[in-house]
């Protein structure tokens, strides 16, 4: 009989699940996240998996991980160092041990530490038997055999039984961190609706994990993390890709335009296509095209035909769409291009994150081809930036590039669901009035009317050849070209009058401003807050509009002695800031395919400010 176990309250915990690509670690992590969100913790996640779908079992390069940081407080990063590592095999232990906090907890599937797996992980001796893990709290749990015992009598093959072991591990973690299994049980029932034997087996494995925690002598303590004090409202856990998809769905509803997505599957952007394919009852049309170019071109066609048209991709796909985006610039048609950035160049690191497509987005086209560029800063911000990108595209009749990244796309956090009626209405430039119509007439913003096929007597042609203003006729006149080049540039520049100012978190002026953009927001915020705890005075500003930038950007920058720009690239925003404002900036560039560690930024802050922390 087990003793009543002590429950220890913690403020925050970082857990990493690691195993073979086929072990279901992403699933385990996302189930733990959903449950953790549901019990009211703030959280932030970092799925980290290889590009290979099922690399050979047991190898180091086949290790898939999912890190999750949860807290009773407000948090912004997936955590620098895990407190707990769940390692399903020796390779997972080897690959992740160095990141684990000193004295951290390791839960291993001891069944998998056989000679073969130890060899595959390049272990000369079994780390569970030598002294190498002495600095950690190690729990050797025979997860495979315990799962097999629990599933005795089910109709599953031994292979299928083995595949249930992640639910055992999840159950054990639920017990250890005092989380209810209900959301996962509901999920299992939904997911395996058509396979009752899987429902039974996975639920049994999950419950066996919970019972094991309860019964075993090994675990004497369990932990609880109280709900975070989040603002009042209804919440759900949301990933960046899902938020992006929902944002465009909302933009479609709010603009009254049906949504068209022309797309070609690419990691890590495909989920947006998958999510939107489900919303047929909203009239959403998703077109899985033959390639990236067909994806964007079909969106251009749908835009001409009066839809809210979008295309989603990642860096290599954006490169392929380049020429077509130029066509949308010339024809002045609204199209949103979503680039979920990943490690480059070329195929690069498909499943990893990076911020290196900024210059490609702003400048990467032939000719003078101005395109507004926006960037979301957190998973939930993807929702609002999708709406904002749509608003700008439709108001200014222009293609807009929305940048997210692999970290935002796959990472998740709690999201206070907004009231639909609080979301902005989106106006369009649709024109049906025949009197005085010309395809390239201009309004005060220099935006042209949108005359949609099917509208009587507004027949007109658009195309990639240079246009005469107002009439839209093909025109080769040198002065007209000069005029139109400048007009298109001005039209995009005009957007600066229509976007919020750059906000400063902290003092409005001072020694140091950290300037960031995109998915690094949370980590910079965390680093700034830690620096403040150390007594430093510094401010943070984060750009969500990269082209054009908010009107007050130069003014904000001029009020600080030093500007530090952390980016997961070699300094693309830094280049823009220097050339735009003729000021010197400091850079922090770490391009590891992973989000910054808070400590990377904190170290750079202390270097930059020296001992100057006011103490």
């Amino acid at each position, binding site marked *: 009989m087990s003793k009543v176990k002590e429950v220890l309250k913690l403020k925050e915990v970082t857990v990493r699940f690691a195993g073979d690509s086929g072990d279901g670690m992403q699933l385990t992590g996302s189930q733990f996240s959903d449950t953790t*969100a*549901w019990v*009211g913790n703030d959280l932030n996640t970092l799925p980290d998996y290889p590009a290979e779908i099922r690399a050979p079992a047991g190898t180091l390069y086949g290790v898939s991980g999912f890190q999750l940081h949860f807290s009773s407080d407000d948090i912004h990063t997936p955590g620098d160092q895990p407190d707990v590592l769940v390692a399903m095999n020796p390779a997972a232990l080897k690959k992740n041990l160095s990141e684990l906090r000193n004295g951290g907890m390791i839960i291993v599937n001891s069944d998998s530490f056989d000679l073969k797996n130890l060899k595959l992980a390049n272990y000369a001796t079994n780390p569970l038997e030598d002294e190498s893990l002495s600095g950690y709290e190690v729990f050797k749990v025979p997860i495979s055999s315990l799962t097999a015992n629990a599933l005795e009598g089910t109709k599953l093959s031994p292979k299928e039984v083995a595949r249930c072991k992640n639910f055992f591990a999840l159950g054990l973690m639920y017990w250890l961190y005092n989380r209810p299994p209900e959301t996962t049980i509901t999920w299992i029932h939904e997911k395996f609706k058509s396979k009752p034997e899987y429902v039974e087996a996975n639920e049994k494995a999950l419950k066996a994990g919970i019972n094991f925690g309860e019964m075993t002598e090994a675990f004497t303590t369990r932990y609880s993390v109280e*709900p975070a004090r*989040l603002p*009042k409202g*209804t*919440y*759900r*856990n949301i990933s960046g890709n899902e938020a992006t998809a*929902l944002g465009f*769905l*909302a933009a479609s*509803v709010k603009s009254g335009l*049906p949504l*068209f997505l*022309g797309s070609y599957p690419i990691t890590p952007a495909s989920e947006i296509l998958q999510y939107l394919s489900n*919303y*047929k*009852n*909203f*009239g*959403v*049309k998703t*077109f899985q*095209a*033959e390639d990236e*170019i*067909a994806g964007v*071109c*079909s969106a*251009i*066609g*749908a*835009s*001409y*035909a*009066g*839809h809210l*048209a979008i295309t989603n991709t990642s860096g290599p796909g954006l490169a392929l769409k380049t*020429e*077509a985006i130029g*066509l949308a610039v010339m*024809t002045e048609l609204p199209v949103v291009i979503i680039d979920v950035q990943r490690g480059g160049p070329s195929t690069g690191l498909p499943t990893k994150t990076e911020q290196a497509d900024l210059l490609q987005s702003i400048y990467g086209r032939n000719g003078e081809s101005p395109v507004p560029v926006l960037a979301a800063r957190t998973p939930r911000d993807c929702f609002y930036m999708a709406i904002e990108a749509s608003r700008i595209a439709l108001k200014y009749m222009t293609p807009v590039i929305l940048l997210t990244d692999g970290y935002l796309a796959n990472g998740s956090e709690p999201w206070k*669901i*907004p009231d*639909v009626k609080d979301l902005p209405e989106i106006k369009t430039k649709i024109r049906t009035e025949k009197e005085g119509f010309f395809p390239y007439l201009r309004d005060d913003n220099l935006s042209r009317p949108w005359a949609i*096929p*099917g*509208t*009587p*007597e507004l*027949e*007109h*042609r*658009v*195309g*990639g050849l240079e246009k005469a203003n107002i009439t839209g*006729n*093909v025109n080769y006149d040198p002065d007209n070209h000069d005029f139109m080049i400048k007009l298109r540039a001005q039209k995009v520049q005009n957007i600066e009058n229509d976007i919020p100012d750059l906000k400063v978190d902290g003092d409005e002026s001072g020694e140091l401003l950290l300037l960031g953009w995109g998915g690094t927001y949370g980590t910079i915020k965390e680093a700034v807050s830690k620096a403040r705890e150390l007594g430093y005075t510094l401010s943070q500003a984060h750009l969500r509009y990269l082209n054009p930038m908010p009107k007050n950007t130069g003014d904000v920058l001029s009020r600080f002695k030093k500007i530090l720009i952390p980016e997961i690239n070699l300094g693309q925003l830094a280049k823009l800031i220097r050339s735009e404002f003729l000021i010197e900036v400091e850079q922090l560039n770490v391009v590891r395919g992973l989000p910054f560690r808070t400590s990377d930024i904190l170290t750079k802050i202390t270097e930059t400010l020296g001992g100057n922390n006011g103490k």
Partner: protein
Amino acid sequence: MANSTEKVVTKYTAKDFSSDQDVRWCPGCGDYSILAQVQRTFPEIVTEHKENIVWVSGIGCSSRFPYYMNTYGIHGIHGRAATIASGVKIANPDLAVWVATGDGDMLSIGGNHFIHACRKNIDIKILMFNNRIYGLTKGQYSPTSEKGKVTKTTPFGSVDYPFNPISLAIGSEASFIARSLDRNAKHMQEMIRRAGEHKGTAFIEIFQNCNIFNDGAFELLTEKDTKEDNVLVMEHEKPLVFGKNSDKGIKLDGMTPVVVDLSAGEFTKDDLWIHDEFEKSPARAIILSHMEEMPGMPTPIGIFRQIHKETYDEGIERQIANIKSKKGEGDLEKILFSGNTWEVK
């Protein structure tokens, strides 16, 4: 299906489809004839709601076409006409979407889009002006140029084999495949009309003379003295007959078509291959598509094949209607608040 002998009631004339833009093709170009035949035929196809017509093109001489049509139109980028047209059609299936393209635009840089548009059976009509040369870039060989072609980029003759566009379209499962000639106005009008009536991807290859860079490419098929002996006009349910005095016919000998003499008395029309546009198997359409490559055989024009199957855009609309009737109209609030939600009080 409108029958060509019936009087069509229309509110439009050819002039209604002519834009105010000056046509800028070279004098003598076959493109003029194609434009004229389209403008002459359209009043019969488009009896009302001219505003529902969209012309889409890529890049090349042919692709200037939309500028000359007084309809909605997009002059796209090189090779991508089929993709833009697909987007227009899928977005709004009420629109009639036509594509003007060339052999370089559609079969070289746009080859991938062409086969996939055909495969998906998106309801767009593709008129491919095949002049077997790159015209707008001034005379390089194209993917339909004959092997050995001497051009600026192949001064010693090309070493690659041309595409057979009809065979490619059949292989890609286009649902309407036809061929016509720039110089045969009546025939082209008929093909355009028939393509307009078809639902699904319709492909018409139009042999078009580029009198600047590839003059005379189709001479045998268009000159008075030679055309009747070299062109086979295929008609549905009729025997394959050609020749100056309709004195030659095509007989299928196993899988091989052979020319037989109808004047000697040995063969009659009853012995000939009876053309069936709607034949389920594509086998005989493929044989027809390769006929012109065989020595002594005529070049077929007309409809090689047409089949009726659900179009991509119809499929999408059907799914949307189905899901709407099952789930009801989409409710944004319901979607946003779905999944595992919790209250913070």
